[in-house]
């Protein structure tokens, strides 16, 4: 029980609070060698030191008090804060599409957590309506928390659970699905769901936010509106990632789950379609397709759920001078599949050849992808490429490294027959390998060049 009274405090600072009988959320008057302080004692983040006590002073600011300076302290009152987004029942509007929001965690719906000092997920239709009432004009929303993990903790188990839940919802007649997701591995999940949920009759939209919803300038609200609009109203029945187009609050982009990648650690417009153009733009008013061909929304419910995933696949990011034991150790550890992320057109150094041969003999499935992110693996151009193919490495076209990892895991979840696996890997399900690369599929503009600066000035970034 004592933990409840001294939330987050440990060691020396806990002893001080106990000594003077001052609780977290208690109003305290504290005498120190640096003068007198008073305010409400707040919980302390778990990873912060045990030498300070956090106090909210009357002006609303927080300060820390060094416990070694404390001469005495006294609790004069107690008032626990109740952090709660005002919940309002999500209204039902006849005629609007039915959309299901699956919660997985991440910053799209979050609130303050004293344990880590960071934000934790919070989420219900009522809370969402309280925070983004505009959603009620777009669709009739129901929500389900599938699990609550941070993006980096999403993995095979979660992909499978999500795929099954989606299948169930589609059978139940939903008009569109939105998945709230942390952004770090949004594109991994996008690929996984593309492979696991095939022939969907409705849009499946993955959405996150780059700025948590506890900030006034958060992209969460607009991203959610865009995602709901897409799920409820768009004709594109594919697995998509819906995030900001420019960093400005203007419009979102719909990216194919297999061709999208997070390209900046913190920008709002971090998600980009690689080697192709996005599917469409989305605003609160309309969805404008960019690509002419896509899978259209259907009335039937003929979805195929293929919830397979092997956890025996790894990735090897090549660097000059990489030694054979890196690969040997992975093989010895029992990995059945390796995605190489090679240099240039898809290369690793000769020193690795013996290890590659050994791995091939042991039946390890090896595929080559690119550090350049853009472009195709071309292993016929140089001898080294041909050597590697002879030793069992299969070029994976212009499949993104992360997508190749997801797909090989998915394939090995179904079969270990090399030919079967190869067929699965090289037969695109939804453009994870494309036949052609449009010239505007590669655009990394160089700032500082006059014509680019002119563009940046006139078009919102």
């Amino acid at each position, binding site marked *: 029980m004592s933990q409840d009274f001294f939330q987050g405090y440990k060691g020396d600072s806990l002893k001080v609070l106990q000594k003077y009988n001052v609780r977290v959320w208690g109003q305290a008057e504290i005498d*120190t060698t*640096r*003068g*007198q*302080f008073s305010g409400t004692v707040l919980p302390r983040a778990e990873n*912060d*030191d045990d*030498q*300070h006590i*956090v106090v*909210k*002073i*009357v*002006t*609303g*600011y*927080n*300060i*820390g*008090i*060094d*416990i*070694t*300076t404390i001469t005495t302290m006294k609790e004069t009152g107690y008032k626990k*804060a*109740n*952090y*709660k*987004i*005002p919940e309002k029942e999500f209204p039902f509007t006849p005629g609007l599409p039915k959309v299901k929001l699956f919660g997985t965690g991440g910053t799209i719906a979050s*609130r*303050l957590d004293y344990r880590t*000092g*960071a*934000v934790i997920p919070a989420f219900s239709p009522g809370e969402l309506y309280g*925070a983004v009432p505009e959603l009620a004009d777009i669709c009739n929303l129901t929500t389900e928390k599938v699990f609550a993990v941070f993006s980096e903790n999403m993995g095979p188990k979660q992909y499978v659970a999500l795929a099954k839940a989606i299948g169930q919802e589609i059978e139940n007649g939903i008009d569109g699905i939105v998945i709230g997701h942390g952004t770090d591995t949004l594109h991994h999940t996008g690929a996984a769901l593309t492979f696991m949920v095939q022939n969907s009759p409705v849009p499946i939209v993955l959405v996150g936010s*780059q*700025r948590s*919803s*506890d*900030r*006034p*300038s*958060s992209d969460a*609200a*607009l991203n959610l509106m865009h995602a709901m609009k897409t799920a409820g109203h768009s004709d594109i029945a594919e697995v998509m990632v819906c995030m900001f187009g420019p*960093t*400005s*609050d*203007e419009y979102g982009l719909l990216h194919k789950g297999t061709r999208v990648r997070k390209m*900046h*650690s*913190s*920008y*709002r417009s971090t998600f980009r379609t690689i080697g192709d153009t996005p599917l469409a733009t989305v605003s609160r008013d309309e969805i404008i397709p960019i690509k002419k061909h896509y899978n259209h929304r259907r009335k039937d419910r003929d979805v195929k759920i293929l919830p397979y995933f092997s956890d025996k696949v790894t990735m090897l990011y090549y660097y000059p001078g990489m030694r054979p034991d890196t690969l040997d150790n992975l093989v010895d550890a029992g990995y059945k599949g390796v995605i190489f992320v090679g240099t240039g057109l898809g290369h690793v150094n000769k020193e690795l050849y013996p290890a590659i041969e050994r791995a091939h003999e042991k039946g390890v499935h090896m595929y080559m992808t690119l550090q350049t992110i853009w472009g195709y693996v071309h292993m016929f151009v140089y001898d080294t490429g041909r050597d590697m193919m002879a030793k069992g490495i299969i070029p994976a076209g212009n499949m993104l490294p992360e997508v190749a990892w997801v797909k090989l895991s998915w394939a090995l979840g179904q079969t270990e027959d090399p030919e079967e696996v190869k067929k699965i890997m090289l037969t695109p399900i939804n453009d994870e390998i494309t036949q052609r690369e449009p010239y505007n599929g590669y655009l990394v503009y160089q700032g500082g060049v006059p014509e680019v*600066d002119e563009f*940046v*000035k006139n078009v*919102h*970034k």
Partner: protein
Amino acid sequence: MQKSFNASDNYEKTKEAIGYVARKNATQQDYDRIGFMSGLEVHQQLKTKHKLFCKCPAGIFQKPEDYDAEVIRHMRPTLSELGEYDGTALMEFKTRKKIVYHLANETACTYEVDDTPPFHIDHEALDIAIRISLLSKLNIVGEVHITRKQYLDGSIPTGFQRTGIIGVEGEIYLKHKKIRLIQLSLEEDSCREVSDIGHTRVYRTDRLGMPLIETVTYPDCVNPDEVQEACDYIRFLNRSTGLVRTGMGAGRQDVNVSCRGGSRVEIKGVAHTKWIPELTHNESFRQWALLAIRDELNKRFKDTGKWKMAHVELKGKNIPDHERFLNGNLKDQKLIAVNLPGFGGLMSHFTQPGKMFADEIKDRLKVIACLIPPFMMHSEELQASMEQTEWDNIAKKLNAGDQDAQLLFWGPEDDIKTALETIEERCRMAFEGVPNETRKSFADGTTIFERVLPGADRMYPDTDTAPLPLANDYIEKLSEELPTEVIDRYHQLIKWNIPENTYTYIFSKNHFPLIHRLIEDLDMDPVFAGTFIGHTFKFIEGHYNRAAEFDTKMISGMFKYLKEKGIGFEIGKYMLPEVFEHPKMDFDSVLESLPFKKIAEADILSMIPFLKNKFAETAINHTPENEKNWIMGELRKKAVGNIALNKLAASFNS
């Protein structure tokens, strides 16, 4: 409304009824009568190389048209740490503003547009903030926690200002009293506004993120002059460190004012301390007037809860005069007539010089409903913009009673609902008294509504930064390097007999250390040193062109040179303009260019008999006084620097 009603008479009558006095006639009794109370939030930019949370340069400014990119944001209210929505936040959300940021490559990085989390706090800024906190006798915190203070007006792209408390509970000593300090915080400065028209507000981001401190006082000031004195003191204290920025916008203050029974109202961004007395004076009386309006309303309505306004849309031939209302453009705009029951005679109630209660409504409509002026007229204007018969027609349409007032406004359809809510809200507030708000100041001493006053509910811990412990030895080291206190310096200047009219200039430019050096190191007469800086140098600054290379250290260098050469300090007055404009010239050349010639004292004195004869020959009025003045004038040029003028004058008496 009775036909005999005269708005101008009513305005004057209500002004008299609340006992308004102009500031120049106001006494402490007047302020005691209305319970004047005021405190300050003084902002001061720190002189650092970088911004507070990123490595962009600080102190580089762009012209409004000078930018390289634009970013657009909308702000949405979020909960505070204690789970409350803030009133300001909700008001700003109502205004539905599109915020446009102008970015310049030189002064903005991804941090300014909130596309990257904060970097480590600037250490230079932290050092300065702690020094000033120590000078302000504040209790220094054990650990700095960065807090997010919500600002939904868009002045900061994140929607909050990152700010941390450095010290709490301090005090400063004015000439006759002590003012208590609540706290000092270190924070990032906000954007500068370029324009705000309708639903679009434009900011530039050059100033954004520059380190700023805010010193907050208790409301200990009991008259307008005291507020200015306290403000000057805090600014001088900040400048005494030599570590803060000066010039336009480097120091700004918000002034909190209330009268007895009134509410805390914050007058934002007062650029000059000399504006403070007039502003605080008017604000205290504005509140006093609002309380009179409250009393009158409560007299008129037994059950104030039943008060209800009514409105109709005027269409087609019911619109009195197209041209005048909608600037001839009726398209996409609606014209609404509103009846305000019981507000007859109150719309034209005095609030501030030249302003009446109706302006309270008008100002809110502009800010909250984003209407573009002109957008409103009412039945009690001092210069009626419409015939009485037309108002009578409108009153009839609204079924108005004799004690009611009418108001007309027009705007885009989308804004009408917010506008009606705003009018109703402001009128309901009139029953309560003085709304808590922030107000924008004007040079004439009046203010207008800017925002609902935010409270502690807009605070949220910054989850992007870790708490920053301040160790004892770090603070002790900083406290060893502090300048002497401003109040001690003030008493020292008095002791030196330096005239008081130089003090403001000396403190505001932080010249005390220079004067101190001249007196201590060069044995200069204190009055000469004080007046040389406070009068002569001030005059030169105002009348000559300062060269970029000029540094005030050159003043002590110049006097040191004169002392070594055995030349009187008086010549400094003639040398300094040259040094000020051509600091690269050596002092020898400066003297030569005046021109100055070294002449022995005795040689100068020996010229007196000759000049006396000359005077006797040529003068018309032969008084000794005239003789002395004439000879002094003849000798002045030769004497300056060679013999002290008072010594020369004394030689006549011998």
